[in-house]
């Protein structure tokens, strides 16, 4: 059984058809990249899967269960997490506080107002362990908005990964990163997503081809092709629609 499946997913914004009948299948444990030119509907697809929008037509199944139209927090509790293309952290909170929120979410501590959070040593320990793993130990007490771009992006991605979801959707994790930063981010993702299922949208083809087990090409709201990186590279239709314009 696929961990994530969409059937006939369609969406339009006031008459503008963004997705028309997308059937996506993501298998357990794979890293699945979604590529395609700007305006192909990639982020809209993510937004429907994670509950931002309800699709005009079609269904989303997570582990065989119909989750179409559930709210983001409900999907998050089922095991779907995501990161954002435009960095979306808790700006004035420290890196530590940011990650600690993800740790609290993972442990299901959501409405506790009876215990001091500083007394929760296991939460503190786990948060510090995550910070060390993502090389943010030195920036522990700095506000998220004061971090360097690369570190801030790492925090953005880690917010999605620290909550330990079964399925993580990463929306252009390398957006705006330098070559070195992208390289570091790829290594980080490889390390942190061991044994988990990841769907990622990415424009950086080096990152895509080094990370992805399978690739789906989206073009004008439809799936053009799905396959292994080698298959996609060899696909004539894909070359014509998308890859042809890029040097790789």
């Amino acid at each position, binding site marked *: 059984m696929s961990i994530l499946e969409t059937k006939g997913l369609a969406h339009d914004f006031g008459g503008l058809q963004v997705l028309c009948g997308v059937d996506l299948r993501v298998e357990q444990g794979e890293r699945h990249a979604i590529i395609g030119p700007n305006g192909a509907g990639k982020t809209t697809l993510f937004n429907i899967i994670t509950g931002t929008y309800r699709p005009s037509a079609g269904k989303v199944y997570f582990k065989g269960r119909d989750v179409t139209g559930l709210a983001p927090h409900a999907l998050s509790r089922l095991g779907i997490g995501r990161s954002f293309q435009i960095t979306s952290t808790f700006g004035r909170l420290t890196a530590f506080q940011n990650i600690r929120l993800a740790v609290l979410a993972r442990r299901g501590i*959501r409405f506790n107002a009876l215990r001091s959070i500083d007394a929760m040593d296991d939460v503190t320990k786990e948060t510090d362990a995550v910070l060390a793993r993502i090389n943010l130990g030195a920036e522990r007490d700095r506000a998220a908005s004061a971090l360097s771009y690369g570190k801030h992006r790492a925090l953005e991605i880690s917010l999605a990964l620290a909550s330990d979801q079964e399925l993580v959707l990463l929306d252009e994790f390398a957006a705006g990163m330098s070559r070195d930063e992208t390289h570091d981010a790829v290594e980080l993702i490889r390390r942190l997503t061991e044994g988990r299922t990841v769907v990622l949208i990415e424009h950086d083809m080096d990152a895509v081809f080094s990370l992805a087990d399978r690739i789906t090409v989206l073009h004008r709201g439809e799936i053009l092709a799905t396959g292994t990186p080698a298959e996609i590279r060899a696909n004539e239709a894909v070359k014509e629609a998308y890859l042809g314009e890029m040097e790789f």
Partner: protein
Amino acid sequence: MSATQRRLACVVTAFALAAIPPLFGPYYTNLFLTFAIFSVFSVSLNLLLGYTGLFSFGHAMFFGTGAYATALALKHVSGLPLLAAVGIGVAAAALLALVLCPIVVRVSGTAFAMLHLAFSQMMYVLALKLHNITGGEDGIGNFPIPALTIPGVGSVPMKDEPANFYYFAIALLALSLWLMWFFTRTPLGQVQLAIRENARRTDYLGFRVAQTKAVIYVFAAANAGVAGSLYGLFHDLVSADGALGALVSFAPIINIMIGGIGTFLGPVLGTAIFELIEELASRYTEHVELVIGLLLVVVIMYAPMGVLGVARMLRQKWRRDAPAAGALQKTS
């Protein structure tokens, strides 16, 4: 601050608070109690404004509901114990918040602010119009103030005993302040900050934003109810203008802005400055609002983060300069 230091600070504060009536006499004791009541009221608004990012123009409705409920209970129920009367005030404020929260937690920003202005003005007009319940413009005055009875210990009279009432009120206000302080340090207090910073991301992490806001909202309202209830008992008079008017809603906003938004003790400091200036200005002029207004203009223009914000900036500047000064000394 270490735990020992904190405990020491608590003991010193407790002694200082206890020493006020014998040292300063009834006039200043009452002035201080007014300050303490409005401090708790301001901190309760700051839970919404500074900690959750919810701007309310109508926080007075919880203050007023607390005051009216306590006064009405004492007027109509004979033999009601003092603590029960306060409890009724707090419960009424919390209940009002519970009724409103399905509507207000769905909005934020300007909509939240204006919705509260509308609801609180509605409460104000109701208090004026429902003459046979609320006494209209005259309000409810001269209701009985029962003695504080502790079973097995005895009973402490409160009527015309300003020092006794001061101790009773200060203890409850301190408890309310401590509860709110503790709240900000719990996991829920962290989620509160997360909502202020980025409600969408909070949702995606799996927290229920609306429900979390509702819990905070009711908690803040209950604490405003504590302040309102004690305010009613303190004056033995509850009126629409004194407890529900728009100015009552604006006072804590001004206190928070003067003291420093988003810091726990900022609103307390702001209330102290506000009360002090009001007290001093009223000795020289009838136009106290003019003085407060000018002060507010200065704060907004030059210290938008309030007095504590300025203090923090100066401390950071001093820290930055300190090593440089040390280096200079070495070379000379």
